[in-house]
């Protein structure tokens, strides 16, 4: 490996290693679920509701059933015995596998057609005749929160719960914080600035649509399920739970997964239903989403409306922050649904010390379920906070960087610093990070340049924002807060696992409990193991995603894999190293304490010429009769890592934009990011994660809008109506970092999967508002498409606030 990148063979942590996974992917030989063709395989298409809310009067499948090649059509009654969809955080209405007498969102599955061919299944789905009696839907969040009409008539309220803090859960303390803020507002020397903003619903849209193939073998009494999932073990457990099987009766395999971003962090009804069909029909059954299915029936993200208020003095000292919001859960709760705003609550006060009262109510509406989409609650929290701080800075006329710096949690409060809800944080140095950004970007020069262009009448703006993220989940004790995965039969806690096996030829197999959706685990994990054992990266193969062979792991999400499962693998490698030292000592007739691992083998310190190879060491391990008394054969180890806390990456971002006053078109000219994710294992992969994260945050700021129409329609069925950023829409990004290692895990890594997204939407919007501020514009809702920006400019001009 490593052609041209100067890979260090002695320490590969912190070095660029070309990705181990790429050769298959660039040759087109990587296996994704939809590539799978099994003998006798049948295909599924769903009949989906065209209404947001309706009674299902009748379902007539007789025409469909009579069609050539149609094997079965199933409706709610056929699967009623399986219960609702298994759901981890079971708060609110759970999803029925197929809708019964009512549909509660557009695209809800009413019937499942199974046929010999992909095209045949679709034809038959079109031939199923469903009669609906449409009802008024509840779509608007404020209306939903008012309970003027109920989404589910058997529930007392649309409001499931409200996350409020902090300190979290302590009502007296919450009331005291509210009083402190009220007192600050009452002072003569303070100003309060509020913005009400929509954090619009987003469609995750990984490029690979979700796909699942289930194969029930009646003789083995076992399901083999290939799925494009982020959580193979939870899926296996969810299927086992639903069908009354044991964990060993279900084998789930997540092969190459074409992006996930949280939307494949769910057990879906279609995954359960293809299992049912396979069991009924005795044949393998495949379902692959169309893009239309993906848009309407795979989970959505965000979907908040909230008012954020900052109160402070004219010198920039902030004395209180309040967030009052409503978050859209959709019609049914799935895996994490109501827990998403909870993640926002953790980081509600960002990098700052000021008193914070944060409250977000979770409501049902007649829309698709929301759940984790890249950042999950944390982008929303950062958006409101950082927009409000900018609005306050503008109001008092103090530089936004200065206002932020004045209110940071100081570096010297670590260790021991805690969030506004009292949750301990690991490490942080926010001021150093911000200063590094401002200096690297040449902030003062950029401001001067902006002002010069502004004087020429051009609408140029600079936007700044900071973030702190909670990720790397952990701690294992989250189980005690109700996040136990018990619904999926894997009450594992937020821990991680890894297994390292040195084969007889001296190569290493690493089997991990999580699986990637593009993050490069095969490379990063090989680096971790190579670093501990001195086995070259090219001699290490990392496997994942097959529950029959991989140790239990809860999955890749919440930027947790390297921090948690990577640390477990690091510890497993250390166990192997300790045993290998004993084996090498036996071969070299020395003491294990004197063994040094180097150059692909081991030697006694001071005698590098007498080297034994990993193959020599492993061969001894697999010939136990040659071992000294009492030593066991074999050379492998498994470790479980239980993190004591989540990790808390942070960063600051700066954007430079220009708005075309005639068209409302926004041009993103520069984007400069200073992220701190602790130690970096592979800078190339880490940068790639930030690039992708930025594109999704910028996508929200400028292009993407997954909101439903007032009548419950979702006019976002394709990439025409739901434009993802294209290569022509984005600039090259300027990435930099500070490095503040965490003390939560032995690698010192915090996680980087979501940081780019969490930091970016508000950075861009702050820049655009800054660009329009000479016109008197103080707020524009995302996405900042030309029409909306143009309208804001016109409104400001009409209001006569132009100077």
């Amino acid at each position, binding site marked *: 490996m490593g052609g041209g990148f100067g890979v260090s063979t002695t320490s590969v942590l912190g070095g660029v290693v070309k990705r181990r996974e790429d050769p298959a992917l660039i040759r087109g030989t990587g296996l994704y679920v939809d590539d799978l063709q099994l003998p006798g395989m049948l295909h599924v298409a769903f009949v989906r509701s065209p209404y947001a809310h309706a009674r299902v009067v009748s379902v007539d499948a007789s025409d469909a059933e009579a069609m050539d090649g149609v094997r079965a059509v199933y409706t709610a009654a056929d699967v009623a015995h399986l219960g609702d969809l298994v759901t981890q955080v079971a708060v609110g209405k759970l999803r029925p596998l197929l809708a019964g007498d009512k549909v509660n969102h557009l695209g809800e599955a009413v019937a499942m057609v199974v046929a010999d061919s992909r*095209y045949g299944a679709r034809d038959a789905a079109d031939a199923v005749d469903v009669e609906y009696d449409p009802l008024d839907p509840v779509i608007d969040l404020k209306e939903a929160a008012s309970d003027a009409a109920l989404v589910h008539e058997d529930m007392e309220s649309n409001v499931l719960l409200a996350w409020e803090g902090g300190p979290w859960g302590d009502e007296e303390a919450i009331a005291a914080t509210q009083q402190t803020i009220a007192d600050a507002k009452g002072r003569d020397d303070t100003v309060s600035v509020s913005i009400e903003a929509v954090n619009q619903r987003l469609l995750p849209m990984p490029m690979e649509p979700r796909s699942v193939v289930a194969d029930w073998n009646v003789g083995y009494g076992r399901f083999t399920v290939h799925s494009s999932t982020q959580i193979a073990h939870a899926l296996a457990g969810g299927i086992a739970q639903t069908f009354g099987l044991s964990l060993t009766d279900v084998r789930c395999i997540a092969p190459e997964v074409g992006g996930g971003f949280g939307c494949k962090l769910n057990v879906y009804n279609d995954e359960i239903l293809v299992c049912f069909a396979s069991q009924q029909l005795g044949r393998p059954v495949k379902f692959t989403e*169309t*893009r239309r299915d993906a848009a309407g029936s795979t989970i959505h993200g965000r979907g908040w409306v909230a008012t954020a208020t900052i109160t402070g003095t004219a010198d920039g000292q902030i004395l209180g922050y309040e967030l009052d919001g409503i978050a859209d859960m959709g019609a049914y709760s799935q895996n994490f649904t109501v827990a998403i705003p909870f993640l926002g609550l953790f980081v509600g006060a960002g990098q700052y010390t000021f008193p914070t009262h944060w409250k977000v109510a979770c409501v049902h509406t007649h829309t698709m379920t929301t759940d984790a989409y890249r950042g999950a609650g944390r982008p929303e929290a950062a958006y409101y906070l950082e927009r409000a701080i900018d609005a306050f800075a503008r109001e008092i006329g103090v530089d936004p960087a200065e206002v932020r710096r004045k209110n940071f949690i100081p570096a010297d409060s670590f260790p021991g610093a805690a969030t506004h809800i009292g949750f301990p944080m690991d490490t942080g140095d926010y001021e150093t990070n911000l200063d590094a950004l401002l200096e690297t970007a040449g902030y003062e020069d950029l401001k001067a340049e902006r002002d010069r262009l502004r004087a020429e009448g051009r609408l140029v703006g600079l936007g700044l924002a900071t973030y702190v993220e909670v990720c790397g989940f952990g701690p294992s004790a989250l189980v005690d807060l109700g996040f136990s995965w018990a619904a999926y039969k894997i009450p594992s806690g937020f821990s991680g696992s890894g297994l390292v096996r040195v084969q007889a030829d001296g190569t290493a197999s690493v089997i991990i409990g999580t699986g990637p959706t593009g993050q490069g685990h095969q490379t990063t994990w090989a680096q971790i193991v190579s670093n501990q054992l001195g086995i070259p990266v090219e001699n290490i193969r990392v496997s994942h995603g097959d529950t029959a062979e991989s140790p239990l792991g809860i999955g890749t999400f919440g930027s947790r894999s390297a921090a948690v499962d990577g640390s477990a693998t690091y510890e497993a490698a250390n166990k192997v190293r300790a045993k290998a030292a004993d084996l090498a000592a036996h071969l070299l007739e020395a003491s294990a304490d004197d063994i040094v691992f180097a150059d692909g083998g081991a030697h006694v310190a001071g005698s590098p010429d007498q080297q034994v190879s990993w193959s020599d060491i492993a061969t001894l391990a697999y010939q136990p009769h040659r071992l000294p008394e009492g030593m066991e054969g074999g050379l492998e180890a498994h470790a479980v890592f239980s993190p004591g806390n989540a990790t808390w990456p942070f960063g600051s971002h700066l954007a430079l934009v220009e708005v075309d006053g005639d068209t409302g078109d926004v041009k993103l000219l520069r984007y400069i990011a200073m992220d701190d994710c602790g130690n970096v294992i592979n800078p190339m992969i880490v940068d*790639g994660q930030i690039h992708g994260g930025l594109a999704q945050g910028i996508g929200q700021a400028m292009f993407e809008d997954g909101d439903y129409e007032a009548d419950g329609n979702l006019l976002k069925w394709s*990439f025409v109506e739901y434009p993802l950023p294209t*290569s*022509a829409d*984005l600039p090259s990004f300027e990435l930099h970092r500070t490095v503040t290692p965490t003390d939560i895990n032995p690698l010192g890594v915090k996680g980087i999967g979501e940081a780019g997204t969490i930091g970016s939407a508000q950075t861009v919007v702050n820049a655009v508002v800054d660009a329009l501020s000479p016109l008197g514009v103080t707020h524009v809702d995302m996405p900042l498409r030309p029409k909306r920006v143009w309208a804001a400019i016109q409104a400001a001009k009409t209001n006569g606030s132009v100077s």
Partner: protein
Amino acid sequence: MHVSLTVNGQRAVTDVEPRTLLVHLLREELGLTGTHVGCDTSYCGACTVILDGKTVKSCTMLAVQAQGAEVTTIEGLAANGDLHPVQEGFWERHGLQCGFCTPGMIMSAVGLLSENGSPSEGEIRHGLEGNLCRCTGYHNIVRAVEYAAAKMRGEEPPAPEWEEGSA
């Protein structure tokens, strides 16, 4: 219906339903699953192949329209097993993450470079506008194509821009 075409240098003769899309012929009849399907509306470019020297989205064509055509898919790009410079560029410059858009992206980049051997960053970005990627933010895709363009001109590719981390 009967179709006969040449795919990656090999003759393929098969019977398909008239409505079969070319992409489904490639994937499901010929087992060439490197060409992916990412949308229903000819928008994402995941299915891009080279047909008679031009890049086409193979989901926009019926299989029968490819009668007699020469098609190159991602599996046929590495001549004699050696990576095409564009494939090499994607590997060297981390131009892929999940890899799902990658075959289509690589084929489009091959098409772009066959028309313009020295594209500017803007030309690369506009040239690949019809191929969506949700993972990379396109940053390293642009670097990958710059790498390949230099290689194909016989020049030293621009240095990678990785910053060292620490551990």
